[in-house]
């Protein structure tokens, strides 16, 4: 068991994310669809966590608390996937290799257990980032 594990992160679409997004980004459906990281059970074992444990994902760009789940679509050991959206974009590096397109896929992240930490809502993350978040919403 390790305290931390370094994985290669990709952030891409999922139909659950698409459906929830059209319903609304402030809905519980969107929260459920996107505030997760899919990782191989082998990597969970290395990290010493059960599935559905909250973890802290940290990249060069930032850090976010999400729930680690077993992959809905098989992810090999060493790779992790957060569905595109608010939680993913807390850690996506904005570097573009001079093309305009950020590094949405293929960047190293550190994952560590964060069992007692709370997953923030989409609104809390985005409004919080720009200093607009107030407890209880606006």
């Amino acid at each position, binding site marked *: 068991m390790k305290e931390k594990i370094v994985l290669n992160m990709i952030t891409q679409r999922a139909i659950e994310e698409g459906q929830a997004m059209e319903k609304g980004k402030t809905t519980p459906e969107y929260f459920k669809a996107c505030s997760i990281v899919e990782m191989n059970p082998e990597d969970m074992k290395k990290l010493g966590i059960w599935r559905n444990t909250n973890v802290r994902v940290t990249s060069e760009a930032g850090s976010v608390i999400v729930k680690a789940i077993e*992959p809905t*679509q098989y992810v090999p050991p060493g790779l992790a996937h957060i569905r595109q959206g608010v939680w993913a974009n807390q850690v996506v590096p904005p570097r*573009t290799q001079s093309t305009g397109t*950020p590094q949405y896929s293929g960047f190293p992240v550190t994952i560590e257990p964060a069992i007692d930490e709370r997953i923030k809502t989409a609104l809390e993350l*985005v409004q919080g*980032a720009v200093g607009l978040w107030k407890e209880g919403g606006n």
Partner: protein
Amino acid sequence: MPKWITQVGCPYCGSSCDDLEVLVSDDGKKVLETRNACVIGNEIFHHASNPNRPTRPRMRQEDGTVKEITYDEAIDYTAKALLKAKKPLIYGFGSTNCEGMSAVGRVAEKAGAVLDNCASICHGPSFLAIFDNGYPSCTLGEVKNRADVVLFWGCNPMHAHPRHTSRYSIFPRGFFTTKGNMQRTIICVDPRETDTAKLADIHLMIDQGHDYELFDAFRTVLRGHDIPDVVAGIKKEQILEAAGKMKNGRFVMIFYGMGCCHTDGRNHNVDIAISTTRDLNSHTKASIMAMRGHYNIAGPGQVWSWQFGFPYCVDLSRGTHAHMNPGETSSIDLAMRDEVDCFVNVGTDAGAHFPIEAVRHLKKHPFITVDPNICMASEISDLHIPVRIVGVEEPGVVYRMDNVPIQFKKVVDGPDGVLSDEELFDRVYERMCELTETEPIWILNRGHAHGSSTAEQ
């Protein structure tokens, strides 16, 4: 009697399905049911009737709350903010019609703005590769009727384009593909075993980020040379088998997605995909297509290329000519370098889909969102202006992923008093002309979307 409206276009993904059927209520105001739509499309049509949808512009107050204002006030605020800014950025257009994009073009020119669309964070690298290497592509109809070997590279249509495989690429029976999926060989290249990969005859589970090497291996094999035992995590035998299937196909179709554009290499991955297509054409007929994400995200590429000569990252701030240089004039890079002093987010959600650091930079200046729905961008905006939903409440021309234009219909009336993107931006343009005491220039007939809507009904 509720009425079924047929041949309705779906405003979600790049497949731009135009075979939906929608049941609308007696008064023509509410969508009751849809047929043929995927789960996401269905959600969009039903969402239009959501009672919590905003129907008036909302201005953020000093205490952080929002207050409803009139459209006139919102238009005045937008016009003044754009004129005051030295270098405003107008970004988005994943989900609006070409009429709206064209209207925005006039506003951007007047404001000396940078005009950018979602391709900037999506298929932008494809544009760069296409400029360098050409685009031997075809239409989705040709794929359906001819393609017997279909390659999905770094794309997952089962999730991102839910009806793509049933309408065009795997299952449908076409003119020369009468046996449908029985006749097609499906190859999938993806680091995950996606739901698309599960449908494939051959799944090459590539090491993430090593797309260029694998394309290179295919080119080497196709040219009759030897390759190492393992390339990008894929065994030589598997590469030879897949290359053999492609060589022996009658029509090979390569679809590629964000697996190429979002990872290391970007445009170079697309570049070599195009070269692979060219090499394949010395053995058989082959074609390539970018899996464009939204129903009309090919639209701004078309419209702005006519208007300004460039499809995205169009910098009009010099006032004399348009200038495009992704990396310099692209939204994310401009934001990260703090080079813009006003941000207008149209028909997309930069708040949710930009890396958060870029959002933080943009929020230092006036931030305006034009979108039918509450989204992350609207919830941090200084001003949110709701508009009608294209494809549901507003007709117009959209470009499908294969650059085929399709006239979308409206199926219900929008909420009373809510403007379309085109109406809104035309009024912003007029207000800017008033404020600068200049004459508006109208090149084309106005109200095109509305003219066609009456013809359709």
